[in-house]
């Protein structure tokens, strides 16, 4: 991985000693760390596009970590959030997970636990971004299909042969064959299996075919 693409960890804690030590620790496994002392400054200024994770202290003056978590979720931030607390209760833990925290760790935190949680979180974030990316590309290609091609695709996904599709749409098998070749090309599919894997969900969502 080159430097700009290395995952970025945002660390929010009001205690300078804690910030510095945790940043040092996280840095030892090659992750970039951006430390914030003020949750408001973090919310206003952090890079939402970067791959990475957020480490958030629960107990901070002015604004609670749980409130920050709620705000992040409400703003659609997709970076996983790891909550840190010095005095965790079952209720607080329950609330954090319900609000969408990826992990809930107690201070003082062991390096193994924190670093493993961070690596998991980053992996999870990368995967979700990729899924998101793939989905977006599929949607863009699907949009290029003509009305007729979409109908044919729907019936292919439903498992019909060319002959059956022709009968269903009142087309000659030759015409069906042409549509089929076109849509394979437009969607960049190399096999029937790949076509169905990538587009079955889209077809069902768009056409309402059960």
């Amino acid at each position, binding site marked *: 991985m080159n430097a700009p693409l290395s995952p970025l960890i945002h660390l929010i804690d009001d205690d300078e*000693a804690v910030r510095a030590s945790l940043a040092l620790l996280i840095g030892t496994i090659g992750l970039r760390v951006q430390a914030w002392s003020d949750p408001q400054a973090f919310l206003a200024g952090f890079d939402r596009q970067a791959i990475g994770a957020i480490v958030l202290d629960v107990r901070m003056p002015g604004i609670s970590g749980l409130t920050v978590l709620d705000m992040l979720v409400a703003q659609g931030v997709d970076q996983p959030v790891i909550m840190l607390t010095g*005095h965790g209760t079952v209720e607080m833990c329950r609330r954090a997970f319900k609000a969408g925290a990826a992990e809930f760790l107690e201070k003082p935190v062991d*390096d193994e636990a924190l670093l493993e949680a961070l690596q998991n979180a980053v992996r999870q974030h990368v995967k979700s971004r990729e899924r998101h990316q793939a989905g977006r590309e599929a949607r863009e290609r699907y949009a290029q299909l003509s009305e007729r091609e979409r109908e044919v695709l729907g019936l292919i996904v439903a498992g019909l042969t060319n002959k059956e599709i022709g009968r269903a749409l009142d087309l000659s098998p030759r015409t069906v064959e042409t549509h089929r070749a076109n849509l394979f090309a437009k969607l960049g599919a190399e096999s029937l299996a790949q076509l169905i894997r990538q587009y079955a969900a889209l077809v069902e969502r768009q056409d309402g075919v059960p």
Partner: protein
Amino acid sequence: MRKPVRRFATGLAVWLAVSALGCVVLARDELRRLRDAFETDARIAHRLLSQRAVQHDAVLGTLALLQPAGTVERAEERLPSLYAQIIGVQRRDAGQVWPDPAMREAEAKSRAHKRAVLAHADLAAARYQLVLASEPASFAMQIDLRAAVPWSEWPMPPETSKVRLALEHQGQVLLLQPGRIGEGGWRFDFRKHLAADSQPFDVVASRQVSWSELPWGEMLAWVAAVGAAVAGLVALARQRAGRQRAEELLRLGQVGRLNALGELAAGMAHELNQPLTAVLANSQAAQRLLDEDPPDIGTARSAMAQAVQQGRRAADVVGRLRRAVERPDLSQQLTAVALQDAVRSVFYLLEPEFNRCAIAPSLAGPSASVNVRADPVAIEQIIYNLLTNAVHALEQVPVTERELVVGVASHDGIGELSVTDSGPGVPADVLPRLFEPFFSTREKGLGLGLSLCETLAQGMGGTLSAAHHRPRGAVFTLTLPLAST
């Protein structure tokens, strides 16, 4: 405070209402009784007077009937000596005429009605004359009404009775007894003809009951009794409210203490966790840096320096905390405390708890009080904690096997208090750690109770120890120096 005022007003209203109602009932009862007595007396008087009137008729009738026998002359002359009320008897012999026209008229009427008839009546002078026509001679009898009244059988004392009684006839009035008729109050009246047609007098009785005759004594007693009852109820209600309030305060105090403790723990955790987090993170980062190839010694060294600094910070936090919660020196405020009294006071506090768990604690020891040098609050705190622990232990054994004995003794200048329970006892490995702070075998226990008790006991120059009890259970013993007498 609105509630006590309202309770007082309600009490006052109830008192007034019930008092008034009771007084009306008492007064009406008394008036009915007085009326009954009056009517009875009046009827008796009427009957007695009627009997006399009938007697007069009978005497005249007898005279008229007996005249043919020829002994009449003497008989009629003897009558006044036989009957006090008969003043004289006159006779109109056959062929003669009464000289008095009124008597002549009366005789004619008597003949027509075939009974005696009133000829003269002077009620003011208490005199009247009866005429009975008969053959051959007619008789007239002069009667003194005052003498006719049978005072010996009279139902009331004529001089002092409050009943006014008179005879009336055509506007004439003969007052037989004056009674006492005043203004105001209640008036009873009675009027009835004498039961003899020949003597058409009305017996008129009246009775004035004055305000002063109402049963004031009884009414006053009633009002006082109701007042006492209402005051008692109000006091009871106030006492109950006070007790409730005290219980609430106690509960609030406990909750407040728990909250304060929770807050303290949370604050302490945060204050200590921050430096500890930094110490741990710095040390572990240093370890990782030293493990690298080549090791980054410069960064590791500064991380270790940070760790040291944060370790000092943690020590400072603990020091600050100790100074903040330091207790005042107990040995300064010791007084003589009777162990038995302290135990009884805590028994009282824990009574609901004992009842809930069906535990009957007993106090064993000398009847003379064992006085130790102690702080009264601290010693009750210790006993409270020991008994609460015992209750928790006893809850784990069947109800029939629950025994709790508090023993008090003194020897060699030492006062000793022991709490023995028949609970499951203390495991051998736990016994040596029992008084460590934050050590608890209970799920929700903070582990501070026994530690605090030991600190308090030592602060008062005493000791607190725990031991096994045979065959089962635990015994905790508190010793304190006896108070010098």
